[in-house]
Structure formats: structure tokens, C-alpha cells
């Protein structure tokens, strides 16, 4: 039996010895997950320092193609996996969300490095988003600043394990009804998440009221927060 057959075959169902080399009995989930995880095409999409380590992972020494992932697709339409490799800035996040919406399902997102996971060292900055998971559903987080190529590979293997545990019946993209695209953030006075529009309007009204109050009684400092 080849190694692939061993990986896929259901050990509970006995196959007669004479056709053992020709027949595998397996479940749809298993074969579906197996084929999906072994040909994940990442999007050719680098943001910052982590992208350099991602390129190094794809290069000679660490060789991403051993995992069937060497086909980096520059177009979101052909990609399965988005590796968010680097600092997500407020100016860039509308584009990232748009790219994610363009990816066909099933799609996975990996937050590579501290910045993409939670803002990283630049979290203090006025133009930095504290983690891509504020906008996209992230499947795997890879810590490190930057993660070494081996750490990234470990992250990819972790993602493969996650895929192995999925079932066609429960994954969100095969549920009835079309999935809503994620609303694209707006570049306003600050970054605006359309999902928070009501809250923001409230906030704007509050600010206006406070400003009015301050005009009447300048002594009181506005309580923000």
C-alpha cells in the first residue's frame, strides 16, 4: 500500500487482499481535506518584513513546494490562503479586505508575525491596525517578529491539521445561503469599520454635544472614552 493510500484508507473497512492495491475505501471528508490541504495556493501578497521571510520560505532552503504551496498566486481569485505577512496599516486594510472578499471559498487566512496577529511593535502607531482579526476571520496565528521560515512552516502545518479536522457538513462556506462579503473599511478621519457605523454616529453626536457644552461652560473637560 502506498503511503497516500495508508493515509486515506479507513482501517475499519476491510478490503480483500487481492484488490488491496487497487481500491481504497475512505470518506468524502477525508479525501476532500487531503486534497485541499496538499494543494493550498497562497496569495503572492507581502506587506512588510515578514514577507521577506515568507519569500525565504518559498526559496531553496525551506522550499514551500514540498507542501504543494509553491504556486503563489498574485490574483486573489486563484488563491486559497491569504498569508497576512506584516504590519496591517489603516491605509492598506481596505485593500486587504477587498482581496479577501475576492478569494473564492474555501479560503483561509494566516496572520504571520506579531503585527498581523495583534499590532506588533507598531501597535502604538496612528496608522496601524491592531491585528488583522479585527476585520478578517483568522485561522492560524504565527507569533514571532518575524517568524523564521521554520516557524512559518510550522504554522502552515498547523493550518493543515486544522483543515484535516474540518467537515464538509459544518464548514461555513457550504451552509445554505450565500455568505455576506465583509464590508470594506472606509478611510475617514480615522479608519472606519462600517459594521460599527451606528456606534460611530452616536459617538459623533456625543462629541458634538460635548463641544456645545464646552462652548457654554469651558471649565469642564470632555470625558472621552
Amino acid at each position, binding site marked *: 500500500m502506498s503511503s497516500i493510500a495508508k493515509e486515506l484508507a479507513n482501517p475499519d473497512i476491510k478490503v480483500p487482499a487481492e484488490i488491496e492495491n487497487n481500491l481504497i475505501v475512505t470518506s468524502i471528508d477525508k479525501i476532500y481535506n487531503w486534497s485541499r490541504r496538499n494543494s493550498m495556493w497562497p496569495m503572492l501578497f507581502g506587506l512588510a518584513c515578514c514577507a521577506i521571510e515568507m519569500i525565504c520560505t518559498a526559496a531553496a532552503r525551506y522550499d514551500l513546494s514540498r507542501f504543494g504551496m509553491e504556486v503563489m498566486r498574485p490574483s486573489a481569485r486563484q488563491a486559497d490562503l491569504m498569508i497576512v505577512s506584516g504590519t496591517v496599516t489603516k491605509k492598506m486594510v481596505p485593500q486587504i479586505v477587498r482581496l479577501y472578499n475576492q478569494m473564492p471559498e474555501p479560503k483561509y487566512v494566516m*496572520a504571520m508575525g506579531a503585527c498581523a496577529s495583534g499590532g506588533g511593535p507598531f501597535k502604538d502607531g496612528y496608522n496601524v491596525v491592531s*491585528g488583522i482579526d479585527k476585520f478578517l476571520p*483568522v485561522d492560524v*496565528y504565527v507569533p514571532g517578529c518575524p517568524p523564521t521560515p521554520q516557524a512559518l512552516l510550522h*504554522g502552515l502545518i*498547523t*493550518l493543515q491539521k486544522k483543515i484535516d479536522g474540518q467537515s464538509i457538513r459544518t464548514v461555513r462556506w457550504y451552509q445554505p445561503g450565500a455568505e455576506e462579503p465583509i464590508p470594506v473599511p472606509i478611510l475617514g478621519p480615522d479608519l472606519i469599520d462600517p459594521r460599527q457605523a451606528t456606534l460611530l454616529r452616536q459617538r459623533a453626536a456625543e462629541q458634538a454635544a460635548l463641544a456645545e457644552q464646552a462652548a457654554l461652560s469651558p471649565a469642564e473637560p470632555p470625558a472621552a472614552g
Partner: protein
Amino acid sequence: MFGTGILKGMGVVLRHLLGSYADDIRYLGRKYYSPDPKQLLARQGPKGKGAMTVMYPDEKMPVPEEFRFTPFLVYEEKGAEKDYRCTSCGICAKVCPPQCIWIERTNDPKTGRPVPQPREFHIDIDICMNCGFCAEFCPFDAIKMDHNYEMASYDRTVKHIMNKEALGKPLSYYASIRPRNFQREEAARAEEEAKKAAKAAAAAAKPAAKKAAPAKKAAPAKKAAAKPAVKAAPKKAAPAKKAAPAKKAAPAKKAAPAKKAAAKPAVKKAPAKPAVAKKAAPAKKPAAKKAPAKK
């Protein structure tokens, strides 16, 4: 022209291809899945000629000693108890460039003085930039940079803010990943200890000799006493220090090497007299803790 440049270029590629086979012959039988990292490194190093792929999950590129990933807290094992070296002095939190360290210090309820152990210690590894300043500037060798890079997870909200428990790793682990640094630091610590012991011995030469008689009970009792009252006068601690060697009936100078050996449980072979060494260690510890608080 006429394509000669392209042909010449193809020659380079061909040579590289053949180089891979030359390497295979040179490192015969060790092409992939080499169990010995040194052989892997030889092929990966500047002498390698051809393909150099590391078959990652099956064979791993060994990381050098100085390699740093996320920080961890060093603790010394005292049976089941973990004795963190951290004194919550806060230097790492102050020097941390992205400010990813949060330390909660506590005061002793009785004396109101700060306790030299952090109540809680948090590092947000989603902010950490792996720069290693915390380890570099820690005066107590209490926080060090880890070698473990395989930390990918599915959920950051729970795993990525690491608390004292998650950050703690035993001293023996530190000794195993950074043997050279460990030895250098331990030697420096032992020297410091010896200096302090000599000073204390000189200061309390006479009363110590008399108090040495009930030494057997003094050592553990003093440990408990010395911890809350950090700023206690050095005189009190001095007898405790002397106690251990006194019981062994050995000269005070010998204590230093014994302590040094005790501090390296993993790397070095067991010290000549383990019983003595073990007793020396608890006596040493409160004294070591006191040094920062005094400053």
C-alpha cells in the same frame, strides 16, 4: 551575442545541478533526514555546492545559541515549588521597546514593603519584537530569550498573552539551550556571591562563630524570615549564610564552588557532595534576592 550569453548562463545552472550530486557523494548517505545536526549544517554551510533543502518537519535546521524568539522567565526548581528568579524590579518592562511586559508587584501585607517576587507577569507576544533587551538588561538573569519557535496557534485571545505560569521555564532548560551563556553568567554570579560572603564574613566574624552551633535549624528558619523582611540588616543574614558551611565544618571559602555546582543541575555532573550542596543553595537564595532590594 548570438546566444552565447544565454548558453553560458545555462552552464552555471548545469554546474549547480551537478554540484548537488557531488554533494550527495561527499556526504554519502546523509542527504536528507540526517539525525546529526552537525552534518546538516556542513551541507548547509559555505562549503555546500548544490541543493540545500531542509526537510523541515522531519529534520530541523538547528538554531544557534544566540538565537532569540520570545522571552521566558527562569525559575529554579525546589522540589515541586518554582522559585522564580524575577524580583519584579521592572527593568525589563522599562527597557522593552514595544512595551509588551506588564509586571504586577505586590507589597507584603505586614511590612508594607515590596515583595521580591512578581505577583503576576504578563507578556503579550503579539506585541513582542524579539529584540532581547529584557534579557540583556535583566540584572538577575531572570528573563531569557527562548529558542522555541513552534508556537503557531488557532486562537490568540487566550494563548498569546502569556502569564507567569506559561512563561516559566526551569533553569535546566535555560542551561540546555544556552550552555555558554549559562556558564558565563553562573560564574559571574558565583563570584558575586563569594565576594558578598567574604564581606559578610568579615563584618560578622565573631558573632557568627558563636551562632554557628544551632545551625541545623537556623538555615530553613532564616530562609522564611529573610524573605518578607527584605531590607533586614545584613547582620541577620550573615549567620544563616555561615550556617551551612559551619555545619559541614568546612572553611567558608569552600562554599562558593559548592554553590556554583548546585546551580547547574542539568549540564554538569552531580556535585561531589550533593547533600551539602543542596543545603547551601537555600541559604544562598535569600541573600541573593536581597542584593537588589538594598540598592
